[in-house]
């Protein structure tokens, strides 16, 4: 081996298998594990389809279905599923259910997505600040979190919605302003344990400012935690929104969400069972896929698991 080596003889050439073993970053390892995880991949594809449908809902409704989702027709109400022209039937006012479901999906999924994004931003800023600095900031924040957490969040949401009848936009903010405690606690804990590691100490010794340490050294190490919690919290927020809208305290009709399509469901048991089925089924499938993806990401990117 030494005879045929080039000038840099101390550089060891790795075979493919060895490279996979030594030279792989945590991220590459995660991707490789993810590719083998069939269940997570299926869930991810279902989510992609749902997201695309939601994203292009207006186009699909106008160009493909060619119906007006809010056009009522008293003579065509409670049509069952599979009626020609109305794939999922019509509702009590004769509106096409398929178009309504698409529209509602857009609203429900964006509330979940943007709510989780805001939650995460709040969680990152507050969690890192209090985890890194500790002291008074940490005590004050912990007290606020404890106070918010001891009101069951549904009651707090009910209280707030009773004060302002929310639109989809304001509901996102309200849900996020209540749901940030869990993410913040998670990130605070992570920051707290990262702060004690040697590389942070050495950065401090080199004179890096706290903000530089936080954003350059700590944030990259939080990314996997953040991605995993994002998937789960989108799911949780979709559930919260649907429950609230079902109670009539969330997004108000005529804007459709999967939750408020079920407001009058109790009166449909006899005439329109199909209207009870579909909105809930879509919530269930979306949230289930999000949880499965969250679990899959956790397993794939967990540095402590071995192949």
């Amino acid at each position: 081996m030494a005879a045929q080596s080039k000038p840099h003889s101390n550089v060891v050439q790795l075979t493919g298998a060895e490279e996979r073993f030594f030279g792989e970053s945590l991220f590459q390892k995660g991707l490789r594990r993810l590719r083998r995880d069939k269940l997570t991949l299926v869930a991810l594809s279902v989510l992609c389809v749902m997201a695309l449908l939601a994203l292009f809902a207006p186009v699909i409704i106008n160009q493909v279905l060619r119906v007006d989702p809010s056009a009522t027709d008293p003579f065509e109400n409670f049509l069952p599923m599979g009626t020609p022209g109305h794939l999922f039937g019509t509702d009590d006012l004769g509106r096409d259910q398929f178009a309504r479901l698409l529209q509602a999906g857009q609203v429900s999924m964006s509330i979940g997505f943007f709510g989780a994004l805001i939650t995460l931003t709040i969680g990152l800023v507050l969690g890192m600040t209090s985890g890194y600095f500790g002291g008074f900031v940490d005590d004050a924040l912990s007290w606020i979190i404890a106070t918010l957490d001891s009101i069951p969040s549904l009651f707090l949401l009910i209280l707030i919605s009773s004060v302002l009848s929310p639109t989809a936009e304001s509901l996102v903010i309200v849900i996020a302003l209540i749901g940030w405690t869990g993410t913040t606690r998670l990130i605070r804990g992570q920051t707290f344990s990262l702060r004690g590691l040697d590389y942070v100490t050495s950065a401090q010794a080199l004179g890096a400012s706290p903000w530089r340490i936080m954003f350059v050294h700590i944030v990259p190490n939080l990314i996997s935690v953040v991605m995993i919690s994002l998937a789960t919290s989108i799911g949780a927020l979709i559930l919260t929104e649907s429950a609230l809208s079902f109670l009539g305290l969330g997004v108000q009709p005529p804007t459709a969400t999967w939750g408020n399509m079920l407001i009058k469901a109790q009166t449909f048991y006899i005439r329109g069972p199909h209207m009870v089925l579909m909105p809930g089924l879509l919530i269930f499938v979306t949230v289930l896929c999000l949880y499965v993806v969250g679990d899959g990401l956790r397993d794939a990117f967990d540095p402590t698991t071995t192949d």
Partner: protein
Amino acid sequence: MFRYILKRAIQSIPLIFGITVLTYLLMTAAPGGPVGALTFKPGTPPQEREKLAARLGVNDPWIVQYMRWLLGDDWMRWDSDGDGLADHAVLLPLDADGDGKAEAPGTSRGVIRGDFGNSFVSRRPVLDVLSERLPATLELGVASLVIGVFVGVVLGILAAVRRGGWFDNVTRIVAVVFNAIPSFWLGLMLILLFGAQLQLLPLQGRCKATISDSCPPIYDRIQYMILPTFILATGLVAGYSRFTRASMLDIINQDYIRTARAKGLNDRAVWFRHAARNALIPVATFLGPAITGILSGAVITETIFSYPGVGRTIVQAVQQRDYPVVMAVTIYAAIATIFGYLLSDVLYGIIDPRIRYD
């Protein structure tokens, strides 16, 4: 132990204080607000309404209004000579509406003494309204807590014993499904199936409707309890089965379990007598979140089943803008949550002899 409980109870006082501030702030921000709703009477001239509002304290500083709500006003303005008009006042003006006469003495005892005022809708004390509804929620909550914890723990232990087997996989799927399914939709579908289609179970209510509005003893109306209890218990089963399983698998690798096996004990004794007992200790800490879950779940479940409990009361109260009821339910729910967490900490100390609170 007693000192620990006392310490924790004292720690929760600022928490409850924070909750009252938060709820009060939210309610005063409401359009119309509590005062607006009280002073609204069709046909009242604006000056009269202003006077009434002044008597109710809208002109007082915010902090005085809050104290009046929290601590009552019977000590802020009182009558010592018995003529029906106040002659002493602290914090409040004697003559709030400016008509030259002193106001009537304060009668409110404040939230802290359990006086949330009267319901705007039924005009009765909020506490009376709620105490009528409480038994219904309690029986539902206790039933689902007992069933949910029992089923969840048993499933979790069995899943851990048969780790990796089909039973383990099935319980895992059940747990994920129960977590992801919107409980109100599950309830609607079950009513649709068992109530409307098969006509096996009643569609709604706590018992057969009667004129006297009272219900027979619980064993005569079990069929009304089955579906709501099931819906409330699903979340608990999901949580407890996962938690118990994880806790069992933590325990099973410990030395004393190996010792038990080495002594030649059979599997059954090792798992159920040695492992399960210790594995259940951390499960006790789950009681706090479980109570929170039941409280939130009751709101939704009672609404689906038109079940006359506290949860449905708050939904109706919001729709009717009955602020005193909304505030009372929220504050009591928060206190119940704090109490639940306290209880699970104390329970933890009682079952686990290794924990000492000093």
